[in-house]
């Protein structure tokens, strides 16, 4: 499975989100690859799901085909886990 963590510049906060997603996936034994990237580059990338801020998510939902999840607190493992659960249920 391939997840993307997205923020405006794709270097700082998406890196934090990426590490949280990896922690959750490791704890849940989900085999996945997580990359972080910026708001522009993501439009040329393929993924099973995209995680980003609620504001950027509104934008990306219109342009991307894969499910997009808005995360408010990037360090919050519970919030990320809820989004991942939602993703797994809808598969």
């Amino acid at each position, binding site marked *: 499975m391939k997840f993307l963590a997205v923020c405006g510049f794709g270097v700082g906060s998406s890196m934090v989100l990426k590490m949280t997603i990896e922690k959750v996936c490791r704890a849940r034994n989900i085999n996945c690859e997580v990359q972080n990237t910026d708001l522009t580059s993501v439009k040329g990338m393929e993924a099973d799901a995209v995680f980003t801020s609620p504001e*950027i998510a509104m934008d990306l939902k219109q342009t991307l085909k894969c499910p997009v999840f808005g995360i408010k607190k990037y360090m919050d493992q519970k919030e990320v886990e809820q989004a991942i659960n939602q993703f797994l249920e809808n598969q």
Partner: protein
Amino acid sequence: MMEFITTNILRNPPVLLGLIAAIGLIVQRKNIADIVKGAFLAAFGMFILDTGVGLVAGTIAPINSAFQEAITGSTSVGESLNDATFTSSYGGDVGLAMFLGLILHLLIARFSKVKTIFLTGHMLWWFPFIFVAAGVEGGLSGMPLVIFGAVTSALYWSFMPWIMRKFVWDVTGDKSFLIGHPTGILSIISGIVARKFGNKEHSTEDIKLPQSLSFFREISVTGGIVIFIMYIVVTIIAPSIVSEGENMFFLSLKQAITFAAGLLIMLYGVRLLINQIIPAFQGISEKVIPGSIPAFDCPIIFNYRPNAVIIGFIVAMITSTVMIIIANSFNVFGVILIPLVVTSFFECGSAAVIGEGQGGIRGAIIGTFVASIFMVLIMGISVMIYNDTIQNWLLVFGGNDFSLFGPIAKLIADLFSGVIG
């Protein structure tokens, strides 16, 4: 032997950064495949980063030389360093300063009350970059230059996030993290002003902003448009920038595209480079430093006050552009300033969030307004100081702590190089 190492490794940034990444991965006891892969990705990242900086700076440089020609009637471009040659000549020193600086930064967190662990990846590269450039401007070289860059960077990484912690915690409502970003001084100014003149009763988050404003978030597009407009203005004032057979509209368009694409390339390079180093750094700090608090990139707090970010960007963009037009018209700084898109979004966006935390919507607006005046002032002063090294890079990314602490570091470097001789 030493000369061989210096020429081929220390002055060869991709190789050096590859090695630093490999050491980080070895310390984490990764397997050999991960180590080889990580080392190569870091080396690619360094090369790509260098290319991106060259593209971005390359679109800015002609603006200033065209203006100087129009104003003074001569092109006084000497054989000095410029942004592209700075990274390839001193990138190795920056890499070493980063490596030593990180160790110092960990020691400060381990043995003092300042428990910051600075995890904003790209800023782990840019601070040694500006401080080494300040050292070069001050006449330092070799080992003293590396040590100078390492000490100044470590002090910044440890202290700035710590100094502004209470402002950040007022926004987040808990004490789980700090902000590690060159917005520092701008956010502090905004916070102090907002506390005095703001009113907490009305929040930025109570109003509903039109969805179309979110367009600004795509910083490469916004940046490209600004560079396009800038070039159109320049070609009208200094037509010599358009060479024969070229069309001013398409020249401007080409430069705008080069700028925006350069920005994306640069970000990709930083990402490749830093993703190999951050996890190692975080792993080590979690193990050896009890009670440490991570400092993250500024967009982390954007989610707490998304409206404040957009309001702050607009306030900063208008205030700074008006000031820049005035400064350029009277040639106040001897350098043509360019509208500060990146700094207005990230640095002033944070300043607005911090201002909102202290004094609601009024605090956010007044705080950001004052901060953006300060932004243009330090920008103008710092590009004069960085005349021989990273001036063009700073014209795009400065106006923040880079522009405040860089010149201060240059003054200190002057003193040191006077002592060493």
